[in-house]
């Protein structure tokens, strides 16, 4: 029993999907997004422009994968694996932080060829020297990306000097999720969840950084640059929100289950995909909307960890994930968003309807991508402080 079984449960596909947002949503702050959208210079790397047409490398052998179950997109990549004779040895995680824990504990050459990170973790992963640069000449399908995802904005996937560190392939935004069987009208503000009628009825995923990011956004702060003084306002909001719950859910799947079982009515840090998860469980009464304050978005990217030995196959994998059909199939499997513009046409109605692709810029302006709080800072709230304060908030919620 214990950890192994816990981790297995956490990463079973459906539950992974339900929970992916929990951990994926631990994000931090991005700068102005609109400015980046449509910036053609950012969308194409200098190397692509100067070194001739890009070409995906030949893939072969075994690829060692480390990330969430489902993020190895076995079905969408089936043809690619079969055509290239590639086998995948997957190691699944139960928490995003396990990626850096496993890589650091195993040291360089821990044996993994491909990982994922979501954008808020980029500074931490750079600090830990986890990310290897990617050769864009071997990623021709980067041209398929939506302009925003192809841009350097936020340096989430491309460093300011043009070095690419990740290939964004799936994303989502969060909002307020309600069960309309018990909540008749969608609240217009995150602060409505603090109303007495929701006492003991709020579901809240156990995602310290994600919750901090959302609360900072609601308070009008950038979570990666929230001063210690402003941080107290953010933590106070989180304390009051936690006191509205009967307990913090260890995953998004758990929050969904809690709502479908009638033990909660409304979700702080909800997610449009929860509607689908509930529908899969026979409950089609979930709705998710971004309230007036907006929220934040999350995007996961494939990356090459230090010490990878099957680099060409990993790059070929990343490139394949940007084939419109593959990108769309991955979105269906993961109940997520596509990063490839042409993939939208391949999406079934329910998945395409999760996000307004025709108003993507507007959506990302209201729900930006953020960076996580910094690892070290005397001025701003740090990643560690968020983790520690979150544990206190959870413990104190019971006595509130």
């Amino acid at each position, binding site marked *: 029993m214990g950890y192994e079984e816990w981790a297995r449960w956490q990463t079973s596909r459906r539950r992974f999907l339900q929970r992916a947002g929990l951990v994926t949503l631990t994000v931090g702050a991005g700068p102005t997004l609109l400015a980046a959208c449509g910036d053609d210079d950012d969308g194409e790397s200098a190397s692509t422009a100067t070194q001739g047409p890009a070409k995906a490398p030949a893939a072969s052998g075994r690829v060692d994968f480390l990330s969430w179950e489902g993020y190895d997109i076995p079905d969408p990549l089936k043809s690619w694996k079969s055509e290239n004779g590639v086998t995948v040895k997957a190691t699944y995680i139960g928490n995003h932080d396990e990626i850096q824990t496993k890589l650091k504990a195993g040291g360089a050459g821990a044996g993994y060829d491909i990982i994922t990170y979501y954008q808020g973790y980029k500074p931490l992963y750079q600090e830990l020297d986890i990310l290897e640069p990617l050769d864009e000449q071997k990623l021709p399908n980067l041209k398929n990306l939506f302009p925003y995802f192809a841009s350097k904005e936020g340096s989430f996937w491309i460093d300011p000097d043009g070095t690419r560190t990740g290939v964004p392939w799936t994303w989502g935004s969060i909002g307020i999720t309600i069960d309309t069987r018990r909540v008749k009208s969608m609240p217009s503000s995150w602060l409505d969840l603090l109303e007495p009628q929701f006492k003991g009825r709020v579901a809240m995923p156990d995602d310290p950084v994600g919750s901090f990011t959302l609360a900072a956004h609601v308070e009008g702060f950038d979570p990666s640059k929230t001063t210690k003084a402003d941080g107290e306002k953010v933590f106070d909001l989180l304390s009051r929100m936690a006191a509205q719950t009967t307990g913090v859910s260890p995953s998004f799947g758990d929050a969904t289950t809690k709502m479908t079982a009638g*033990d909660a009515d409304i979700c702080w840090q909800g997610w449009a995909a929860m509607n689908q998860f509930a529908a899969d469980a026979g409950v089609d009464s979930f709705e998710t909307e971004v309230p007036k304050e907006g929220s934040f978005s999350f995007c996961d990217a494939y990356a090459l960890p230090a010490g990878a030995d099957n680099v060409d196959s990993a790059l070929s994998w990343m490139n394949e994930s940007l084939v419109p059909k593959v990108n769309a199939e991955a979105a269906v499997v993961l109940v997520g968003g596509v990063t490839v513009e042409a993939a939208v046409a391949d999406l079934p109605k329910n998945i395409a309807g999760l996000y307004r692709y025709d108003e993507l810029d507007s959506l990302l302006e209201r729900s930006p991508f953020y960076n996580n709080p910094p690892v070290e800072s005397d001025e701003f709230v740090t990643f560690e402080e968020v*983790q520690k304060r979150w544990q206190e908030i959870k413990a104190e919620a019971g006595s509130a």
Partner: protein
Amino acid sequence: MKAPPRVGPLVLTAPAVAGLLVFFIAPLLAFAVYSFLTGSLYDVKAPLTVENYKEVFETDINRTLGRNSLVVGLLAALFSVLIALPMAYWLRYSAGRWRGLVLFLIVASFLASYLVRIFAWRTMLGRNGAINRGLESIGLIDEPLDFLLYNRFAVTVALVHIFLPYVVLVLYAGLAPLQPSYLETAQDLGAGRVQRWRRVVLPLVAAPAVSAFLFVFVLSAADYVTPQLLGGTSGGMLGVQVQVAFIGTGDFAYGAALAFAMLAGFVVCYALIALGLRLTKLDKVRFAT
């Protein structure tokens, strides 16, 4: 004919000892060293320090969660033993032809996943769970009872359910040498049912019962999965903090110190219980051979 050479006990136990040294003692020692090093991001570094332990004991949340762990551990252990003891007694002396089947069912219950059992309790104790629905259907309550789930009570119930089969087996094995003739003799000497339990059964079963108690106590108090799923806002426990230190904040040194502080707490509890056994002389009680 020449007798085969005798293999000494040291040689026979060497593989097990080696395994224990490599896979248990060495990692434990490594983490003991970690706990005195300075935490770095997902790493540890010099110099040696006692700051980690200072932080463990000075942090309010650790005291709160430590108390929760202690209470849940003690309650789970106590109720497991109290429920298992009559079951083991019945199995040993009264089950008759049902003994084999019941023992099989107890062993078979281990096949049910730990998490399935936790979720089963959510289904039972939830607002729309079987208990609330049942009480509503017979008119005992008008509104669902909210206090059944997401608290220490729910955590304790689930842990008792999870560990009960182990404790029944331990106590059944503990009662196995206690022949029915012991009880018949006591009865012949005028001991009533209560006196037979108090003066014959309990002293003889005290040692295995204490072992089972400690087993459940340690595993329950250190659990970090059940509290997250059933504990709600009031049922958090210290094990979760260790997990957060290693995986969340990457502070291996602090996590190691926290784990060793918990270990020290368990050792103190063990010592107190052993002392209790010694003071009551129950540690001297043996089956006649």
